[in-house]
């Protein structure tokens, strides 16, 4: 069963096209990352799925059927910002959410404990820090232990500990068999927790699929020796290298994933009469990869 199927979704805000025919499918049990820079249409896409925005054209299905409010009751959601009544405390706010979701009130203490808010559960929402607000929103999304969760920038406003805890929570939920749809502009976050990814740019879906296929990153080896010119000339013919680039400090060789062997390179250079004083393997940064993905299809 597909949890979410999006078909040719368009959304215009006046003359601005926020979504230009987006289609993809979220399989059950996946952690599906929607990745894109600010303003790429991530929140618009999720807003349409949650019925707070109206699509200009196109359609989507939840659980393989036409979407209704009952589906939304079964999905835990954190969209954009934590939205709560400022003059109510955490428990009072969660009672409202639980009532709308048709859930019992017994679950409130459990979810507050999960996000470490039980100490402050009787404080007004307006007195919360940004991170606490975000944690309350995560708690609200966990009410009733839903099988599907939608998180829009879930680590927004959290401190490093909060970010790590949220990632752990997402991994734990994934292990428990939940399907998680997560929008983020942080590549590193998507790479760390997602199984699938869709990349959005300016309202267009550039690519989507399994994270290992989309975010594969080339390996780069930095090499330096006393005689850089000689080094460069012997490396031009090095078998298996995709690209050889010379910069101020190093010669950089690019290899397909898993193909770089430092040992072989070292031996090759030595046999050619060059002794190295720097040899280091690094992965192409995700940012570079992301720029590549978003530049190519312009």
């Amino acid at each position, binding site marked *: 069963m597909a949890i979410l199927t999006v078909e040719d979704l368009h959304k215009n805000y006046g003359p601005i096209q926020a979504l230009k025919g987006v289609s993809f499918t979220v399989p059950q049990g996946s952690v599906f990352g929607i990745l894109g820079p600010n303003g790429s249409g991530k929140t618009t896409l999720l807003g349409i799925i949650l019925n707070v925005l*109206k699509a200009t054209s196109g359609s989507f299905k939840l659980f393989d059927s036409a979407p209704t409010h009952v589906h939304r009751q079964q999905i835990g959601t954190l969209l954009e910002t934590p939205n709560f*009544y400022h003059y*109510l405390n955490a428990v009072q706010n969660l009672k409202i959410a639980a009532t709308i979701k*048709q859930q019992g009130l017994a679950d409130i203490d459990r979810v507050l404990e999960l996000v470490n808010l039980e100490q402050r559960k009787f404080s007004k929402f307006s007195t919360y820090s940004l991170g606490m607000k975000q944690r309350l929103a995560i708690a609200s999304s966990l009410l009733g232990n839903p099988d599907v969760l939608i998180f829009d920038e879930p680590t927004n406003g959290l401190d490093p500990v909060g970010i790590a805890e949220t990632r752990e929570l997402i991994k734990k939920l994934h292990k428990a068999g939940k399907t998680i749809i997560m929008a983020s502009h942080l590549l590193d976050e998507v790479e760390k927790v997602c199984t699938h990814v869709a990349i959005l740019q300016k309202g267009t879906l550039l690519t989507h699929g399994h994270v290992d296929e989309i975010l594969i990153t080339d390996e780069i080896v930095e090499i330096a020796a006393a005689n850089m010119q000689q080094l460069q000339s012997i490396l031009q013919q090095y078998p298996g290298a995709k690209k050889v680039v010379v910069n101020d400090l190093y010669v950089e060789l690019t290899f397909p994933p898993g193909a770089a062997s430092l040992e072989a390179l070292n031996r090759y250079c030595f046999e050619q009469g060059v002794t190295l004083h720097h040899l280091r393997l690094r992965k192409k940064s995700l940012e570079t990869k992301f720029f590549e993905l978003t530049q190519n299809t312009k």
Partner: protein
Amino acid sequence: MGQLLALEWMKLKNYRAFWILFCIYLATIFGANYIVYRIQLIIYSERQSKGFATMVLGNPPYAFPTVWQAVAHVSSWLLFIPGLIMILTVTNEYSFKTHRQNIIDGWTRQQFITSKILFAAVLALISTLMVAITAVIFGFMSGEASFSFEGFSYVWYFLLQAMSYIMVALLMAVLFKRGGLAIGVFFAYSTVLEQIAVLLLNKYANYAGRYLPLETTDIMVPFPYIQRIVNKLMFTEPNYTAIFIASLVYLGAYLFVTLKKFQTDDM
């Protein structure tokens, strides 16, 4: 329907600004009538002015049976307060974005806006109940005539008037979304702009001003005796049946536009 109101209650019961405004409102219904009642006492206690007032007005307005009408009319000047409460409860949702969250959590848009319309109806009913209680109190305080339900129909007209004002407020809140703007437009229209339009249209357009939205319900609850005198001065009597139908049509229109707007807008 019960669940929608129960949820509205959960939102309001711990909201202090609401309770302050609400208590002030109930107190001013009693207070404003008390002021007019005191004026009546002064006029009717002096022999000379009493004679004149009895000639023009008849019995004291705050005595049965006219007390229903008098209290309904005086209280109707305060209907901007429940309007304000209505706007506040809706635009709060917009500024906290909780209307979004309610939908995300699994309400339909219709459920959300219906809960607000039900709240408007409850506000109108409580206002009407307060008017009825106040009328009974002042009726007995005036003490000149015995209790009577004659003229109680004005309390029902007040209910229609209250519903009309509060629904206009709800419409403003849904149209403008921001509290300050909605309150400003609602106040300006209900207290000044429409009155000016009524005067101009009545003067230059064959009394068409009587059919303006809030005027249709205002005109049905005049102060006792006054309307009779005013009507005598005018050349045409208002067609109350047509005005009553117009007020119901307006009420239907407020409902329709509010529902439509909330169901089709992006949030």
